[in-house]
């Protein structure tokens, strides 16, 4: 059951990206990402009100916690812009390379307050296979 929710999340990521990119195609990617965030903001405000939770206190909020919101805009801009051109499978593949490099850098150097755990050399085998998979996609 839990595994199914993880699978479903993968499906939904593509659906949301696709919906935004289609909306972008009929208007502009800038409109699509604005719609998504303003709409999500309104919906989540209602959810918070319903749950009787207060909004987050912006006063003592560290600056780095503002980043995810900005990143979220870029994620949609990029997906809407890139997916129609290279296709969603390619988008997933290159996304994965970026994810792999970043998560290894974070772990290796202990960035962003995460625990430091040096890169396991045996993992290079798996990474070579991932790279091979991406090369096959281009053939």
């Amino acid at each position: 059951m839990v595994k199914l929710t993880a699978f479903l999340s993968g499906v939904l990521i593509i659906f949301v990206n696709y919906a935004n990119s289609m909306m972008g195609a009929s208007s502009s990617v800038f409109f699509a990402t604005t719609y998504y965030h303003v709409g999500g903001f309104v919906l989540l405000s209602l959810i918070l009100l319903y749950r009787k939770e207060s909004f987050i206190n912006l006063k003592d909020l560290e600056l780095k916690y503002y980043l995810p919101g900005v990143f979220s805009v870029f994620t949609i801009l990029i997906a809407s812009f890139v997916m129609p051109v290279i296709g969603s499978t390619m988008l997933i593949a290159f996304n994965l390379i970026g994810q792999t490099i970043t998560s290894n850098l974070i772990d290796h150097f202990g960035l962003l307050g995460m625990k430091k755990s040096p890169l396991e050399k045996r993992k290079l085998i798996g990474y070579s296979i991932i790279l091979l998979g991406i090369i096959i996609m281009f053939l």
Partner: protein
Amino acid sequence: MLYYILALFMGVIVVITPVLNGQLTLKTSTYKTAHLSFMVGAVSATLILIIFGSSLFGTDFIAAIDSVYYTSIVFGIFLILLMNYYASRLPAFLIVIIPFVGQTVMGVFVDYYLIDKFSFNKLVGAGVILLGLYINAQVEKKDRKRRLLNENQGSK
């Protein structure tokens, strides 16, 4: 080339976002964190729209948008809740692998039926990538076990 670099960069921010949001969730709550994220997103997206998309301030184009696509926000928020649900209930390697499979299945569907970018090679490539992910997950699993064993012996 630019498209691939952007796709790569998207991977970078996709990793950083849950790290920061995870930290903030521990301090506040899931909904508050998501709310902040959408609030900052709404402000920055509106600014970007005003700067780059000012030719769009008419309303004619809204009729051209298929109403299905407006549901993206509901699924987007549902997605955050799903991720929060399984993140603490699945072993780390499955958190990477299962959504990847879900994405690939849906991605192949979208490419084949909707944007006509499907090729058999991409499917084979995705399979090979999955194998690589799986192998590394096993390495990580063994590594974690060994470390746990060492720690236990150290404490005796």
